[in-house]
């Protein structure tokens, strides 16, 4: 019988269901637990945290969640891959080891830490040596925002994770790597896939793409016949059972809620998709137009036939930079004339901001309940029971944004009638952190693996 590797996804983003990793480990047999914490914006948040506290800068949820699954990891040999390291993978590993020291069998814990994705210390030398790090959409060189850069991280592929597994790591902690590498690496390691077997590598990437957003492939956020999806309160997170030839089955633990079917898995396949012929990763370029998909029994979907091609010699990097300040305030207006009152309140706020001489890059108004999300595509019914006025500003002057936050509550006594819903208090001023995607030569990024024990 051919070998199957079972990988469970236990987290789709930082802030996902805290219970999921433990349920994945306890709900049935798995070989690997994969935990994805990093979205585009996450690295910059972590960078800001590390500036305040040098011990911070990683996803702290990971430590709490590992506490729940560590006995299984150490006793049953389940291995973990996680990008929880954020901008401080070594700090994350230290916290993990400190937590583990009190537990049974802790001497078996071998933490592999992948570093080298952080390019912030090298940015100036990169720019000086001719790397423009131009914005992938606008083509603008990074020099134009260089002094405001908060973080710069390369999306590393699967190789260093494979190395950590080969050196005996049972928990691998990375910083910024591709989400899909957290799945592909265990497959390459366990199934001995060659690094130029493009079709099988592409299949591993597709498996990773399907499960990296957690329960979004098992019935969560699923538009297809959503009413009939059972027991979402007990939703099972996805598991892929991958065969040596690269084909795999998407499933979830028996007795859990949600649904795994062709419709839901297809929705996840097209999620965050660009050109489907070229899903580019550092390991391989996967062709999503070659994917074949078929039902394989209850809550099981089989995926096969994936083709791949050699990767490019570039790595994508994600750069975050400071881009001013923003704040958003809300008020609720009730029937009658809810929308007209909210519109009048908007006019008044804008007039008061103008008379104070405050300038913003943008003042943006939405009427929630009166097509805030679909804009002119939706018709607005006449007799709305209520409308939420949602007004936001963005600008480089923090004081102007602060002043704006004082202009919402006064509308309660100085504006149109029928207003409520202001109990949340004054809006909060937030720093805007913008995202700058760029490409860099693979040769300038050197991933490193460190092995740590208690």
């Amino acid at each position, binding site marked *: 019988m051919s070998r199957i590797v079972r990988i469970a996804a236990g987290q789709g983003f930082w802030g996902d269901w805290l219970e999921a990793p433990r349920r994945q480990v306890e709900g049935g047999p798995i070989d690997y637990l994969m935990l994805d914490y990093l979205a585009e914006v996450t690295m910059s948040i972590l960078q800001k945290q590390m500036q305040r506290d040098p011990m911070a800068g990683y996803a702290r949820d990971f430590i709490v969640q590992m506490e729940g699954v560590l006995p299984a990891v150490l006793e049953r040999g389940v291995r973990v891959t996680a990008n929880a390291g954020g901008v401080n993978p070594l700090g994350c590993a230290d916290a993990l080891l400190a937590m583990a020291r009190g537990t049974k069998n802790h001497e078996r814990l071998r933490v592999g830490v992948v570093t080298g994705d952080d390019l912030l210390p090298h940015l100036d030398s990169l720019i000086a040596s001719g790397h423009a790090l131009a914005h992938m959409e606008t083509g603008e060189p990074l020099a134009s925002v260089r002094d405001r850069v908060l973080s710069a991280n390369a999306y590393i592929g699967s190789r260093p994770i494979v190395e950590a597994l080969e050196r005996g790591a049972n928990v691998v902690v990375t910083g910024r790597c591709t989400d899909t590498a957290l799945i592909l690496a265990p497959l390459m390691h366990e199934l001995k896939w060659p690094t130029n077997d493009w079709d099988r590598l592409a299949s591993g990437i597709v498996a990773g793409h399907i499960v990296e957003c957690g329960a979004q492939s098992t019935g969560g*956020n699923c538009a297809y016949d959503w009413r009939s999806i059972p027991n979402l309160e007990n939703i099972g997170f996805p598991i892929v059972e991958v065969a040596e030839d690269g084909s795999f089955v998407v499933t979830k633990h028996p007795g859990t809620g949600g649904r795994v079917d062709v419709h839901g898995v297809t*929705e996840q396949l097209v999620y*965050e998709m660009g050109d489907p*012929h070229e899903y580019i990763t550092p390991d391989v370029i996967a062709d999503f137009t070659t994917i074949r998909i078929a039902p394989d029994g209850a809550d099981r979907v089989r995926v096969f036939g994936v083709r791949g091609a050699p990767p490019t010699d570039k790595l994508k990097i994600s750069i975050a930079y400071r881009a001013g300040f923003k704040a958003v305030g809300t008020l609720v207006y009730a029937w009658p004339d809810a929308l007209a009152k909210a519109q009048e309140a908007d006019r008044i706020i804008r007039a008061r901001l103008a008379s104070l001489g405050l300038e913003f890059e943008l003042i943006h108004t939405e009427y929630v309940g009166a097509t805030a*999300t679909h804009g002119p595509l939706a018709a607005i019914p006449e007799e709305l029971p209520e409308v939420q006025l949602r007004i936001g500003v963005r600008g480089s002057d923090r004081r102007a944004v602060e002043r704006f936050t004082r202009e919402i509550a006064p509308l309660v006594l100085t504006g149109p009638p029928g207003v409520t819903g202001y109990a949340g208090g004054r809006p909060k001023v937030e720093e805007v952190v913008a*995202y700058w*995607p760029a490409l860099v030569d693979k040769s300038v990024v050197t991933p490193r693996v460190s092995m740590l024990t208690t």
Partner: protein
Amino acid sequence: MKVRLLDIAHARSGDKGDTANVGVIALRDDWYPILDRYVTRERVAEHFARVITGSVERFELPNLFALNFLLHGALGGGGTITLRTDAQAKVYSSALLRLVIDVPDDEARAAGLPEHRA
């Protein structure tokens, strides 16, 4: 015959920078040719003309009975800086499913498409 996309397809959407992607999947495999023929790049660009500031690209995935649309300039500058409620383009999917297409009567009847009566 007027046919609303919501009645013949399902969809999921996401963001990348200032671009929204909307994957549209036929509710029945044999309805994919209808999507392919009538949910054109031009038709979708017209649908979103007053919503996005950039162009529209279309890709076909006949293996998944799906089309993928990229809507550029869809997020007020991108998920990390926008002031919009739908900062990550999560509900662009249903915004596209509002699209009503015209399908010749005999073709629509042969495919068993549900008619949309506004």
